[in-house]
């Protein structure tokens, strides 16, 4: 057995060394300057939880998405799954999608990114900015830069916004209360991870594949068809 003549002193020194190095490292990551991470006033009033709609408001199946512009899984969903979703389900009128931003506290640049999307939305180009942000996430996220504002303003030019109007909106931060309200809406729905999709009244936290979403949509349409038939019979 390994209990003969244990080197207690050596052990104590080792534990102290680990404790000091570990506490030092954690202390450093907590107190280091967070660069572009904005301090959001917790007392900021709530604005309007405005979701951004894509597709026909009369589409039989409605999908609600809660996502964070700086979340890698959301970017994966937006760049890999969403193109199929748009092309095959939204453009064909089967589905509409409403997007709510849900800025997570660990992401340093998510508020400026959400702000950029809202300001692009003022000029009717929310989705163009949405795509730009997700497709270039690794160029403006908290690991890439501590000053994302310049990037956001560059994107406004890229997607042909009226840049001076965009900058006035972006710098005023007037949509911050709305972004906060959108996050509160996510919490009201019990959302704790991103992306979260709500399809047919059910929450899905996973990064769903197109095939899975298609199946859910088909099931919903089948249910609606049955309900419609039953309604006609009742009449």
């Amino acid at each position, binding site marked *: *057995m*390994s*209990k003969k003549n*244990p*080197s*207690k002193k*050596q*052990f104590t020194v*080792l*534990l102290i060394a*680990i*404790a000091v190095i*570990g*506490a030092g*490292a*954690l202390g450093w*990551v*907590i107190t280091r300057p*967070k*660069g572009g*991470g904005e301090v959001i006033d917790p007392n900021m009033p709530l604005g309007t939880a405005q979701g951004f709609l894509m597709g026909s408001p009369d589409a039989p199946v409605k999908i609600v998405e809660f996502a*964070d512009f700086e*979340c*890698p*899984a959301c970017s*994966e969903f937006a760049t890999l799954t969403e193109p199929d979703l748009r092309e095959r389900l939204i453009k064909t009128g089967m589905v509409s999608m409403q997007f709510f931003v849900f800025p*997570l*506290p*660990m*992401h*340093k640049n998510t508020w400026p990114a959400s702000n950029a999307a809202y300001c692009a939305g003022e000029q009717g180009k929310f989705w163009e900015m949405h795509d730009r942000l997700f497709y270039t996430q690794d160029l403006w*996220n*908290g*690991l890439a830069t501590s000053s994302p504002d310049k990037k956001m303003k560059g994107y406004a030019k890229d997607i042909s916004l009226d840049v001076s109007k965009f900058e006035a909106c972006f710098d005023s931060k007037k949509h911050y209360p709305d972004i906060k309200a959108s996050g509160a809406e996510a919490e009201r729905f019990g959302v*704790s*991870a*991103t992306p*979260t999709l709500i399809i047919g009244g059910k929450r899905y*936290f*996973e*990064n769903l594949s197109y095939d899975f979403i298609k199946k859910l949509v088909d099931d919903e349409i089948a249910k609606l068809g049955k309900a419609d038939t039953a309604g006609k019979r009742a009449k």
Partner: protein
Amino acid sequence: MTRRMIIAALALVGLYVAMYLWLFKLGLVGSLACKVGGCEQVNTSPYAVLLGRPVAFWGVAYYVAMFVAALLGTAERFVADRRFAVVLVVLTGWGVLFSAWLTWLELAVIHAVCMYCVISAVIVVIMFVLAMLELRADRATPA
């Protein structure tokens, strides 16, 4: 140094790894320092929450328990106590199973690997091997 001492030291390292991930979930450390793998993708996924609390929180609780058990086991009065060897095997065995489940989720469901989770899994496996060796050695020793 005895195996129990090494287990205690490893548990302390694991505790700091889990605390880092927990602080991330609390929004206190900004982005994770993670140049390899998809730490954020794993830690912002729905599977990073268990029973209403972040998995990292359970990791902290687990490593605290491991550290206390291993440290107590090194105390003079408990050094010969075989029950500690059994407790360490049970705790580390549970840790291995839990880590295996998390690793499976990363590979098969989330499709991203968090290097801190890998570090934690390696620590747990080493602790388990040491605990097993301790138990075997204990059995071989005549009472």
